[in-house]
């Protein structure tokens, strides 16, 4: 894994992990706070509603008692009970007066006033249709029933009428449930989804909504509640339970809610306060979105900062690595451009000093080689001169043997001369002084000439050389002498490292912007380890048949230098014991 990725990872963990941890804590705390807050609020609202409903019920129960204590009503009932036939009209008149113009009706109007016997049978009523009907019987002054008819929902209160401590009749006072609805329809502080509503038991298995619902205005006394579901606050309220649902509760709309239930025993009514979880936790969704957006921004920022930091570290290292690689390939003039005033800068500085030392040493070595070679050349030149003079001197006849030996001496001296020239060329090439004498050249002709020159030598080794001159133009600009040397060197090597009876194949051709010449043998081949040092100075592959003349190990090094100077490339592919193939690639030039 590269330093860039590692740095990014470190920065991400430094930045993101604490952020996510804190975010998670805040998130959980916030969630708890929101729930508790919402729940406390709901509890307060529900309790308030419970109180209002209780107050309303108490006021009208008291109102019924008050009306029953009115002398006109009280006496009319007493007289009616005593003699119904005579006092029937009088009772009806008293009830009508009490309903429309009585002192209580002026404070809290009601819809119907009825008198029953102790069993609830209606004796008289302001609504004469009610006479003869049975009312629910309750012992005290209290809410007797809630019912629905064609005109709406009504509350009916009952109060006993006692004469000499004996209950002889009952008074029923009926009001519209609108005043009750007014209480639950006040949804101040309950947001978009919160509400309170009243429920009561309908029969053994069912309850019923008493008030309209926020999202079902016709529910009052028509919509039923199944009591079998424990997670329904409305059902639990019907079952007379004071419960708090902080999670898991489901509303009549099948929405998850938090809810509070209160049961009012005097009225036989349950109150439910509830609000959708969605609304309670709304802010937390918003927070979550913000956290995610912020985390994404943080990741972007971290990636940006870390790549910047990585660049700070990696750039000088890559520069150093590049320079070191050049140095490895013998370019001692290379320097690392690391200028920062830190440890990396120090490393770069040290590296540059090292490169400078290497360069100086390499230059010194080349200078020494050049000087020594020059000094060696002078006596060689003298020997060449003297031998030539003797051979050419026509005044003294030499014997054939003398001539032959002098010629051999001349040839040996020439070999020495060539070696010195090669060493000088290497030294000059190293110090960048190898000069090319470039001229337009037909590479095909040049190759053919070199192949021809080597035929005799290979024949001596019982080897064959194969070259088919190609068709087409192989005209380019090279130093023919040096390129000839390269081709010859490759042929000589191929021959040296191949057995008798084998064949060296020279081929050539065009590729895109290049001409190539390939020399292939079926000899010893080159191991991978040897391949690496193949083009180095003074390296020679171990060969039992090694010969002295070419034994300096400079051939391939020079060959590579020469091809490089031409802007070309010299490459090798080889399999041990199967042979080698060297390819010279030269750019085509006009």
């Amino acid at each position, binding site marked *: 894994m590269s330093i860039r990725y590692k740095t990014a990872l470190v920065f991400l963990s430094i930045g993101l992990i604490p952020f996510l941890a804190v975010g998670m804590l805040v998130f959980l705390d916030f969630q708890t706070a929101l729930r508790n807050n919402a729940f406390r609020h709901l509890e307060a609202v529900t309790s308030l509603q419970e109180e209002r409903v209780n107050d309303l019920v108490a006021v009208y129960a008291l109102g019924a008692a008050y009306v029953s204590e009115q002398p006109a009503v009280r006496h009319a009932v007493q007289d009616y009970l005593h003699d119904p036939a005579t006092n029937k009209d009088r009772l009806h008149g008293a009830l009508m007066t009490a309903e429309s113009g009585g002192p209580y009706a002026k404070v809290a109007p009601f819809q119907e006033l009825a008198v029953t016997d102790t069993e609830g049978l209606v004796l008289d009523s302001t609504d004469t249709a009610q006479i003869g009907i049975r009312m629910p019987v309750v012992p005290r002054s209290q809410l007797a029933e809630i019912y629905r008819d064609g005109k709406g929902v009504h509350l009916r209160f009952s109060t006993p009428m006692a004469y000499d401590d004996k209950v002889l009749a009952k008074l029923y006072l009926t009001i519209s449930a609108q005043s009750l609805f007014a209480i639950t329809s006040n949804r101040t502080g309950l947001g978009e989804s919160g509400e309170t509503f009243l429920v009561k038991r309908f029969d053994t298995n069912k309850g019923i909504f008493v008030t309209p619902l926020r999202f079902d205005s016709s529910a009052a006394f028509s919509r039923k509640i199944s009591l079998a579901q424990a997670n329904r606050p409305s059902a639990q309220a019907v079952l007379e339970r004071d419960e708090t649902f902080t999670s898991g509760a489901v509303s009549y709309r099948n929405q998850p809610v938090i809810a509070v239930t209160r049961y009012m025993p005097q009225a036989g009514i349950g109150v439910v306060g509830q609000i959708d979880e969605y609304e309670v936790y709304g802010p937390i969704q918003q927070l979550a979105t913000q956290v995610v957006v912020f985390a994404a921004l943080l990741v972007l920022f971290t990636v940006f900062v870390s790549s910047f930091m990585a660049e700070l570290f990696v750039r000088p290292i890559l520069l150093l690595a590049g320079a070191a690689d050049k140095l490895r390939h013998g370019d001692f003039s290379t320097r690392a451009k690391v200028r920062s005033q830190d440890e990396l800068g120090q490393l770069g500085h040290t590296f540059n000093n090292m490169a400078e030392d290497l360069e100086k040493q390499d230059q010194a070595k080349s200078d020494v080689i050049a000087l020594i070679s*020059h000094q060696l*050349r*002078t006596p*060689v*030149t*003298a020997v*060449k*001169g*003297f031998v*030539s*003079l003797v051979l*050419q001197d026509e005044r003294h006849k030499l014997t054939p043997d003398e001539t032959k030996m002098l010629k051999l001496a001349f040839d040996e001296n020439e070999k020495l*001369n060539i070696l*010195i*020239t090669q060493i*000088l060329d290497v030294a*000059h090439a190293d110090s960048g*002084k190898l*000069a090319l004498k470039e001229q337009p050249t037909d590479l095909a002709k040049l190759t053919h000439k070199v192949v021809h020159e080597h035929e005799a030598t290979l024949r001596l080794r019982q080897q064959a050389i194969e070259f088919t001159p190609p068709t087409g133009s192989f005209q380019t600009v090279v130093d023919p002498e040096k390129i000839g040397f390269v081709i010859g060197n490759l042929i000589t090597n191929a021959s040296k490292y191949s057995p008798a009876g084998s064949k060296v194949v020279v081929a050539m051709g065009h590729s895109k912007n290049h001409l190539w010449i390939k020399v292939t043998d079926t000899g010893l081949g080159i191991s991978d380890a040897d391949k690496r040092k193949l083009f180095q100075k003074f390296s020679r592959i171990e060969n039992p048949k090694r010969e002295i003349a070419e034994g300096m190990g400079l051939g391939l090094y020079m060959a590579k230098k020469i091809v490089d100077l031409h802007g070309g490339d010299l490459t090798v592919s080889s399999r041990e014991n199967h042979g080698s193939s060297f390819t010279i690639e030269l750019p085509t030039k006009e």
Partner: protein
Amino acid sequence: MARILVIEDYENLRLIYKTALINAGYDVDVSSDGLEALEVVKTHEPDLILLDLLLPHMGGLEFLRAFDLTKHQHTAVVVFSNLYSPNLLEEAKKLGVKYYLTKSDFTPQEMIDFVTKALAESKPAENAGK
């Protein structure tokens, strides 16, 4: 016959070139360094100078500066040295040298062939007259 001045510090080479040139029929002067050569040219104006570069007391290029080829339009100079250096070659060209050879590449006969050719090139009319 043309007069050749050989400036060469290595005694045996001096001997070889002198012998070969005399055998070829040239008039030959020899000197072992630049200072000596400057004395020689005062009395014998050479047609061609065979000039080595690395010399004691006064080097080949220093000699050329002192000799000043612009004042000796009829003298050809062949730098004949075993020291190969593009820098020195450039310097020699600036001083008016047309030929720059590596000694060890030449047998005496080849050297004479070259000298003859160089003389023919530098003074075609004069040589044609002789």
